[in-house]
């Protein structure tokens, strides 16, 4: 296949606060600001960040459940923002979503079988036998017994419900699954089962994942590449091992320092950041992280740091740790800066 499966360019979403016909300059929540990344076939890209940093909005934008304010989402090179209803519906087959809450994301009035076969029935007519066979097949894929197809969601456990959510996403045989905090509502033991299920499915069917999480342990377990978001922007995007071996952006560092490590002998770093996440309605000027950053210099207050590629294949937006001027000094400027825009 030429080029990446999914390519996101300068994706931006502003939510206006209240509506006004007569008011000008309505304040907006800058949920997602100039986010760019790409996902190759069969790859897992994780997006991590604190609550409210825009992770879920990115997922909803990718699925076009909300309309972007700006930017493009390309699937195999086709911009989905421009698609009309029917083309969009056809395109949805390529990309499916697993939702965060396995309780509210399943219609309580439908049986498990009806829920997981519905996506297919949106596109083709199924006879009763075909539907039952499909439901049994999907249930088996997610490790459930076919008899479960007649159960209602309320008769299933949280883990089983999330398996249904995954089965529903698999029904259309998508090449990309977006998992928005797909395991965070589950018990830790069940989380592991679901994660392993996702890994197995990826190996068997070559599905790419965009895996959104705030749990670094989970991300380390399943990610190939990791994007760290802060206040609607990607601040660091790196291969998983590189990121966990050595975080570059001070925010990534702080996130890792704050993550619990199941090893009582390991000495924890003193958390290097203080204070609260600023409001996305009125984000700080320059680098959004500068009020909390221990390394902040004058330039961080004024200028938004661009994503600068480093040697180990990562991009970082930080004036101190990855100054853009270094790149400018090199002869490959043009190639690098265009890379930093589209990675």
């Amino acid at each position: 296949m030429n080029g990446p499966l999914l390519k996101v360019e300068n994706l931006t979403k502003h939510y206006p606060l209240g509506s006004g016909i007569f008011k000008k300059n309505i304040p907006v929540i800058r949920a997602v600001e100039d986010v760019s990344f790409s996902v190759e076939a069969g790859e897992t890209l994780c997006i991590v960040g604190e609550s409210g940093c825009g992770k879920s909005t990115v997922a909803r934008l990718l699925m076009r459940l909300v309309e972007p304010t700006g930017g493009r989402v390309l699937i195999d090179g086709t911009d989905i923002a421009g698609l009309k209803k029917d083309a969009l519906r056809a395109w949805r087959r390529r990309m499916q979503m697993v939702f965060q809450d396995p309780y509210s994301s399943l219609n309580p009035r439908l049986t498990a079988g009806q829920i997981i076969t519905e996506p297919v029935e949106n596109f083709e007519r199924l006879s009763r036998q075909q539907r039952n066979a499909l439901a049994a097949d999907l249930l088996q894929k997610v490790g459930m017994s076919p008899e479960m197809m007649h159960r209602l969601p309320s008769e299933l456990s949280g883990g089983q419900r999330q398996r249904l959510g995954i089965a529903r996403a698999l029904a259309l045989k998508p090449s990309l699954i977006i998992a928005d905090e797909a395991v965070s509502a589950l018990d830790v033991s069940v989380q592991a089962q679901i994660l392993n299920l996702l890994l197995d499915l990826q190996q068997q069917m070559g599905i790419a994942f965009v895996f959104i999480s705030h749990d670094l342990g989970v991300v380390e377990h399943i990610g190939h590449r990791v994007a760290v978001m802060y206040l609607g922007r990607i601040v660091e995007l790196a291969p998983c091992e590189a990121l966990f071996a050595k975080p570059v952006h001070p925010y990534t560092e702080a996130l890792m320092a704050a993550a619990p490590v199941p090893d009582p002998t390991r000495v924890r770093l003193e958390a290097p950041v203080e204070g609260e996440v600023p409001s996305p309605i009125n984000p700080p000027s320059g680098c959004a992280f500068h009020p909390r950053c221990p390394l902040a210099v004058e330039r961080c207050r004024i200028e938004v740091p661009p994503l600068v590629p480093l040697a180990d294949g990562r991009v970082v937006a930080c004036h101190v740790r990855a100054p853009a001027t270094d790149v400018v000094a090199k002869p490959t400027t043009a190639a690098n800066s265009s890379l930093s825009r589209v990675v």
Partner: protein
Amino acid sequence: MIGGGFLALLIVLALAAPLYAGDPSSMDPFKRLQPPSAEMWFGSDNLGRDVFARTIFGARISLVVGLLSAVGAALGGLLIGVIAGYVRAFDNIAMRVMDGLMSIPTILLAIALISLTGSGIGILIVAITIPQLPSVTRMVRSAVLSVRERPYVEAAVSGGARLPKVLWRHILPSTIAPLMVQSAIVCADAILTEAGLSFLGVGVPPEIPSWGNMISNSRLYLSIAPLTIFAPGICLAVMVLAVNLLGDGLRDLFDPRAKRRR
């Protein structure tokens, strides 16, 4: 469910009226304002008509008006409410119109509609239905608004479901329960409104017996023949009570939490 049983009994009695109740409009000037007898169980009114027969036939009017108004308001409210819950521009307009309708008293609005068009049972039902639309519409709209943001609706959309299917399969089912309950309330209200309009002389044409016009005709003879008023009056109260009990029963059936709370 006592209400439901009682209402079913009333419906059977009313449907079977021609079989046992006799003629409600035959007059006999020599037998005016008679006390109850074997021949006329509830006595006779000021024109010598059989009060029992008129009461039973009056139930038909009340039931027809009540049920058809409830069905009409439910269907109309469902349609407007679902569209309003989904289409923002329509929502603003429709809800302001509904607010306007709500600000006018039901009976007044019905009288105005009837005086615009002339009387008749069809017109009467329409005139009673329209003032009931706002309550149903608002209820359906709020149910749609609360359901449309649920993740399972988003999941259906991202699974490629078309809008009609999303509405039919994922959104409408959760409006049905509150709609049934609201319809029962509308039905009771419509029965009372019809009686009120007929009492005022703008409802059912006078040649058709209805509880409202029976009470109205007989109010001068209360001291001589009290049954001419009490028979339709008590029936009216009992029927409205039965419909309301049915509504309560439906609510408990659909929302078991409300029942436990009591």
